[in-house]
């Protein structure tokens, strides 16, 4: 079973977490056309490879956190609190959605 190193609680079994989707979605209520909004609702990159995503530590601290995981072997490269920058070794982008 996957271990997720919660930045608030430390390493925990993945069964304590709920997967909260790919990072990087942008929600634009004011200006989206129907097609754009439904792309926001339904489309995913769904890559085979490294993916930035969010988790909710539902059976722990109940915080949203962000991670980078390889979907081929489930290796988790890093985990940070939601909204904090990704470790600089891998990216310079914000992890927040």
């Amino acid at each position, binding site marked *: 079973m*996957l271990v997720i190193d919660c930045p608030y609680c430390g390493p925990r079994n993945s069964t304590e977490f709920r997967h909260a989707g790919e990072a990087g979605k942008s929600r634009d*209520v004011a200006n989206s056309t129907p097609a754009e909004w439904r792309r926001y609702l339904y489309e995913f990159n769904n890559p085979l490879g490294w993916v930035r995503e969010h988790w*909710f530590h539902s059976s722990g601290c109940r915080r949203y956190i962000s991670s980078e995981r390889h979907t081929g*072997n489930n290796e988790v490269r890093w985990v940070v609190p939601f909204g904090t920058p990704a470790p600089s070794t891998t990216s310079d982008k914000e992890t927040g959605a």
Partner: protein
Amino acid sequence: MSASGNWRIAPQPGEVIDRSQKVNFTWNGSPASGYAGDTIVSALMASGVRVMSRSFKYHRPRGVITATFFDPNCSFQVGQEPNVRGAHRMVRNGDDVNAQNAWPSLNFDIRAANQVVGRFLGPGFYYKTFIKPQKLWPAYQKVLSTFAPGGAPPAIGTPQEIFDKRFVHPDVLVAGGGPAGMAAAIEAARTGAKVILVEEEYELGGHLRYGGTESLATLAALRAEVASFDNIEVLTDSVVSGRYDDNWVGVVQRSGIWAKERMIKARVGTLVVAAGLIERPYVFEGNDLPGVMLATAALRLIGLHAVKPGTSAVVFTANSTGDEAIERLRAAGVSIARVLDARKGENVTRALGRGQVSGVEAGDGSKTSADLLITATGWTAPTSLLNMAGDRPVWNAAGARFTPSELFHSSVMAAGGIVGDGTTAELIAHGRAVGIEAASRARGEAAKPVAALIPDAHPALFQSTTVGFLDLSEDVKNKDIVSAAKEGYDSSELAKRFTTSAMGPSQGKLEMVNTMAVLAEATGRDFQSTGTTVWRPPYAPISLGALAGRVFEPDRVSPMQLWHEAHGAKDMVAAQWIRPEHYGNPQAEALNVRSNVGIIDLTPLGKLDLHGPDIVKLLNLAYTNTWDNLAVGSVRYGVMCAEDGVVMDDGVTGRLGDDHYLMTTTSSGAGNVWDWLEMWLQTVHREWQVTITPVTTALVSINVAGPNSRELLSRITDIDLDPAVFGYMKVRQGTVAGVADCIVWRIGFTGELSYEIHVPASYGLHVWETLLEVGKDLGVAPFGIEAQRILRLEKGHFIVGQDTDGLTQAYEAGLGGLVKLAKEDFSGKPELVWQEALAGNYSHLVAVETVDPLLVPAEASQIVENGNEIVGRITSSRMSPTLKRSVCLAHVPASLSTPGSRLTIVLENGDRAAAIVREDLAFVDPEGVRLRG
């Protein structure tokens, strides 16, 4: 072949039987015996039993091959338990042991006739036959299914045995308690690491246990060293079943505990795989006859159980283990009729005999009489756990076996024979080195390589020149693989699937390499490109009971549940909650609410306590309606939609103070809503200050409903209930039945004047009983969920998930009035903007009256047009005790949504019934007079 003779020999130095304790059991109904420490198979062998079962497809008599857990034809029915591994399971007093797969008896099996027609039963036989006539296939199939192998399932009503689970966090877990595994555990422990050493058999030692006196001396020293470490936990009769992501390791402990089996789940620092080697059978004609066995099987029977496996043996040997077997057989009193040495180019072509070996034909055509044929033709490394960690083993041509490639994760290491060969001392030295490194890796230090053992040169022996069995549990022959390849099933996966080789209970441990070898030869490819097949978990079969463990399924109940049950409540299961559906007569309960007063336990209602200055912003975002102007002391109903505009949840939220609100949700949606609100707060509006505390079970919720509810409540509260000051949709806090800090609000799901009281949970029962006590003269009675469903339907109130489905957006649910599109933002807004623009051109939730007032169409009855064209459905229906007629809610298309529209409903029996769409959703009190009274 019934039990005959005594095959027990003089005490052996390493024997594990206790000759002072006789064990009595039955074998196919006849009395049999053995000693404590005997396996079922060793006890039977000691009594002269040679045929242990009949084979799956051809029903050929089969005996002992490996004398280990995975001996393919030594599975028995023991009492109610099927497929017991008889060469592993210790025999116990009173065991009722029966052969499997034999009908009517082991010695006379009618289906052995399959042997005669065997030439037609080639691979893929079923795919090629019974095609026509199609109508007869079910009949054929019924017959075929009676041929299913294995034991009988436990009878219905067989009591569930107790299984358990345990969690451990060792630094090092060693899979395999042979010399290398023991050495690894010792050295890891010496560094201070917490070590678990897992051994599949009943004692540590591996092959040393059935080796010579020197082996036994080494073993004694290793055991003493293991025992000297408090930080080594030894688990025998236990097996590592799998290695999963992040070194999550499953261990099944089969004995030595109070439960029948225990599943141990270990989060392991470093997993050391020291699984040793599995001896590989050889494929030749008659290789499945009882009397043909592996050298290690003979060594085990003699060394561990002091059983002589035969009287006269031919030994086909290619290695030192075969050579050792010759000596040990001789010492046990077995005469060696002939030795065939593969290293000198000698070969075995046939085992002769019917039902039992009577002779052996060598490669040169010569025949030797014997009742035993021992083969020692090579080894298979059981790399299963390494594969699960990412390894892809490579073919070592010189050693004629696959070896680990070291591609596996650095948190896993391999030690001992699985890696390569060596003297006992070398295996131990390798184990020690791996143990030190394993502990170091577990401490987080960088991985360093450990010098590998190299497999000794070994002749490549897989099959002789004759046709024999490749897979003894599936009855697949070498020629079947060739046929499969010729037919085009020529990749390893296709050949395996087509012939079912390696798909049976032994899962490839014995037959995988031979299957690959035969296929490689048949297709002219080399071994490596023919490929290895992925060993899938578990490494050894695990009982469903061990996987399940004890069931800890939480029951959620209100503090009044015992009261309910004592007062005739019929319970219903609503996800985790168990709650009263009714107390005997839901129609009467509902009527009592309309005419007097009823109380219902609504504790499962989701309740979230909200604090903070930005609650209004959150409510405006979560609900479709507006929350800007809710005064302290007021409550409001709201609907939540997901981002796709689909109705998600609903409930009442009340303002208790300036920055303090209590939100209620549906019972089943409570968890989701909480998570979802946190999502908005933590990921979208992180600047908002709101704290959410779930108080569902901290508060007991009681709804007091009916015309007498005010009078009833007034008798036990200090809250002023005067409607002029405590009107509809208001909330007050005060004392109820002497309990301070109760929250009371006026709402009306039932359509009646009603007060919902939220009481600190530990006082719930007190308040409940007080209400019943003081309201006797008012006709107070409890009502259950069913009565509430009737009441709300009479009032035309919808239920999320029943009157809506996974695609129902707010306007379709008739909730347009609660959607405030003028708000800047709320969940689902864009979709609802577009739905609103459709100007009613979507399906509608409407109230429906059947023309026949006494007809109650079942919920989910379909509404049709033009014959069978489905246009809508009844979502809720009940007989109304108030109106004495049926009341329904339905989804209908826009064209049928105007009041007075005539609907055609299809009843369960196929009849059609007419119904009319009503003006108003509410059947009872559409003006809301009762509610607001």
